[in-house]
C-alpha cells in the first residue's frame, strides 16, 4: 500500500470511528444521560464544520462540500431533534423504548453518513484509491451487523434481567390466581406446548406434501402459479384475520378449543413451511435426480430416497421458523382457543386452553390495577425462552442431519 493509501484509509477509519462514537453514545444514552449525548453530537458537528473551509478551498469540489455540510447538519439535528426520554409512567419507566428509538434513528443516520461522508468528503483531497473504498465498505458492513445485533441483545437482556427473578418453581407449577398477580402459569405453559405440538402435526405433513407436489409433480403452468400466489397471499394475511376466520369456521364446529386454535395456527404456519421446503427441494441438483431415474427408480423412490434426505435440513429450518412464529402469536388464538383463567389443562382436543402470549396480553391489561409486573416479565421471559428454544432445537436438528454428508 502506498503512503497515500494508508493515509486515506486512516481517514476513513476516523470517519467510521466517529460514527461508532455516535453509535455507542446513543446506545449508552440510557445510562449516561441526554446531556452528554448532545455534547458529543455537537462536538462532532463542530469538528466537521472546522474542516469545511479547508476542504472547500483545497478540493474545490461541490460534491465533497455538500457531503460535509450534510454530515454536520445531521449531527446537529440529532443533538436537538431527537426527543429526550419521556418521564416515568406508572410503576415502570418507558425510557428504555425512547432510548432504543433514539439509538436506532441516530446510529442509522451516522452509520450511513459517517463512512460515506468521510469517503466522499475527504476523498478528492487525498486522491482516494480503491483500497480506501474497500476500507469504507468494510466499516459500513461491520457497523450494519452491529446495528442488527444490538437491539436483539437489548431485548434479550432487558427481558432476562426483569423476568428471571420471577421464574420460580411455584410460578411454573401453579395455577393462575388474582388476575395473574399471584400464582403461576402452569396451564398456559402446558397449553402453549400442546398448541405448538398439534400445529406441527397439522402443518408438517400438509406443508411438506404441498412443497413436494409443487416442485416435483406439478407441471409448470397456470395451476402452479395460482397455487403459489395463493400461498403468498396466505402468508401475507394478517394474523387477526386468521383469528376471525377461525371464529367463523372452526368455532361453530369444534367450539373454543385446542383443536380450533391448532387448525388456525396450522394455516398460519403452512405458507412458511411450504415456501422454505420448496426452496430446499429446489436446491437439490437435477443431475442427482436423473442419476436416480437412470437406475430405474420411480418418481416416488427418487423423491423419498434421493431428494428428501439432503433437503431435510432446509425443510427443518422452515418448520422451525413457522412453529417459532406460531408460538408467539396471540391474535389467531384469542377468539378460537384460549381463556385467560379457568381453562386449566385440557382433557381433550375439544377443551379450551390457556396460552402464554394471550396470558401476557391479559397481564399487561391489568398493569397498574393489580401488581402483575413481576409475573408479566416472567411470562415474557418464558415465552421468549420457548421461542428461542424451538429455534435452537431446529439448528441442532439441522446440523445433525447435515453432518451425515
Amino acid at each position, binding site marked *: 500500500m502506498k503512503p497515500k493509501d494508508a493515509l486515506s484509509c486512516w481517514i476513513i477509519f476516523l470517519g467510521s470511528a466517529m460514527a461508532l462514537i455516535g453509535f455507542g453514545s446513543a446506545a449508552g444514552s440510557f445510562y449516561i444521560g441526554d446531556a452528554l449525548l448532545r455534547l458529543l453530537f455537537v462536538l462532532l458537528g463542530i469538528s466537521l464544520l472546522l474542516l469545511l473551509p479547508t476542504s472547500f478551498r483545497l478540493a474545490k469540489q461541490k460534491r465533497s462540500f455538500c457531503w460535509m455540510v450534510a454530515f454536520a447538519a445531521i449531527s446537529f439535528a440529532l443533538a436537538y431533534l431527537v426527543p429526550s426520554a419521556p418521564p416515568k409512567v406508572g410503576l415502570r419507566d418507558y425510557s428504555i423504548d425512547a432510548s432504543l428509538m433514539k439509538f436506532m434513528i441516530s446510529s442509522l443516520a451516522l452509520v450511513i453518513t459517517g463512512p460515506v461522508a468521510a469517503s466522499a468528503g475527504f476523498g478528492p483531497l487525498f486522491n482516494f484509491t480503491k483500497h480506501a473504498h474497500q476500507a469504507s465498505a468494510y466499516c459500513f458492513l461491520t457497523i450494519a451487523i452491529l446495528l442488527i445485533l444490538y437491539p436483539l441483545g437489548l431485548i434479550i437482556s432487558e427481558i432476562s434481567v426483569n423476568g428471571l427473578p420471577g421464574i420460580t418453581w411455584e410460578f411454573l407449577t401453579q395455577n393462575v390466581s388474582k388476575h395473574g398477580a399471584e400464582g403461576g402459569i402452569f396451564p398456559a405453559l402446558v397449553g402453549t406446548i400442546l398448541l405448538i405440538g398439534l400445529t406441527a402435526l397439522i402443518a408438517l405433513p400438509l406443508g411438506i406434501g404441498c412443497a413436494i407436489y409443487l416442485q416435483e409433480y406439478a407441471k409448470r403452468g397456470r395451476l402452479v402459479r395460482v397455487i403459489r400466489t395463493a400461498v403468498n397471499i396466505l402468508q401475507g394475511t394478517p394474523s387477526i384475520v386468521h383469528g376471525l376466520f377461525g371464529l367463523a369456521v372452526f368455532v361453530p364446529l369444534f367450539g373454543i378449543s385446542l383443536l380450533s386454535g391448532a387448525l388456525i395456527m396450522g394455516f398460519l404456519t403452512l405458507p412458511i413451511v411450504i415456501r422454505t421446503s420448496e426452496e430446499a427441494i429446489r436446491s437439490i*441438483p437435477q443431475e442427482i435426480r436423473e442419476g436416480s*431415474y*437412470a*437406475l430405474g427408480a420411480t418418481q416416488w423412490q427418487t423423491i423419498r*430416497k434421493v431428494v428428501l434426505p439432503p433437503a431435510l435440513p432446509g425443510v427443518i429450518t422452515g418448520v422451525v421458523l413457522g412453529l417459532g412464529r406460531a408460538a408467539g402469536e396471540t391474535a389467531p388464538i384469542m377468539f378460537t382457543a384460549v381463556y385467560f383463567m379457568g381453562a386449566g389443562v385440557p382433557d381433550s382436543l375439544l377443551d379450551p386452553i390457556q396460552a402464554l402470549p394471550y396470558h401476557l396480553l391479559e397481564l399487561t391489561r391489568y398493569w397498574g390495577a393489580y401488581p402483575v409486573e413481576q409475573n408479566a416479565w416472567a411470562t415474557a421471559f418464558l415465552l421468549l425462552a420457548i421461542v428461542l428454544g424451538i429455534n435452537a432445537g431446529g439448528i441442532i436438528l439441522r446440523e445433525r442431519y447435515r453432518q451425515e454428508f
Partner: protein
Amino acid sequence: MENHIKVSIKNLSLWYGSNQALDQITMDMPEKKITAIIGPSGCGKSTLIRCLNRMNDLIEGCRTTGEILIDGQNVYDRRVDAVEVRRRVGMVFQKPNPFPKSIYENIAYGCRIGGINTKQRLDKIVKESLKEAALWDEVKDRLSDSAMKLSGGQQQRLCIARTLAIEPEVLLMDEPCSALDPIATAKIEDLLRDLKRDYTVVIVTHNMQQAARVSDYTAYLYLGKLVEFGPTRQVFEKPEAELTERYITGRFG
C-alpha cells in the same frame, strides 16, 4: 461373422416442442461392442443416447416417433414401463453425479429400489461392482465415507459401478470423461475395454481420439441426422461422406 444386433434404432425422430432435434435415425448396435457417437456440439448426440433409456420422457414437451428395439422389443411400446427399460439400460452422465450418501449406499441404492435388501447380497454386489469399475482397491477401507469426498475421476467410476450394480444389458455413457483429467480418462478407457466383454456399450464423446481408441463402431451425427455409421476403422480411415471426413480431419466442427 456379423454380430448379434442388441440395439436397433429405426426411423427415430425427436422434437423438443416444435424444435426437431433428431431426424429419421436408423442404426444397429452390435452386442458386446463399443459404439461411439461423435459429432459437433448440439448435433443431437446426447439426445439420441438419452432416447435409449427413455430419459427424454422426463423433459416436458418432448415427443418421439420411430422405434428403438432392444433384443427385438420396442422400448417406446405403450405397454413397456420406462422404469423397467432403465433397469436394463444403465446410464453414466457427463458430470459425475453421485448421491450425497456413503460410497456403499450409492451402489446399494439401485439394488434396494429393485427389491434386494439382504445385507449379504448387498455386500457382495457392492464389492463386485466396485471391482468391476476398478475402484475397489481405492475405497475398500472407507465404504461408509461420503461419496462426495472422492475425486472427480473416482466419482465417475463410482457412478459406473453404481450402474453396473443393477446388471444392465446396455451401458450408455454420455461424455463420461469430459469433466476428467487425462489420467482419470485413461483409467476409464481401460475400464471400457474390460466392460466390453459383458456389456453392450454406447458412448457419446467430443474427443475423436477417444472414439478411435476405444470404439468398435462409430456413428457421425450432424444437425440431428445420421451422416455415417460403420466400423470405427473404416469411418476414420476411409469415410464415405465428405462431411465426416472434414469433421474427422479437423477442417470443420
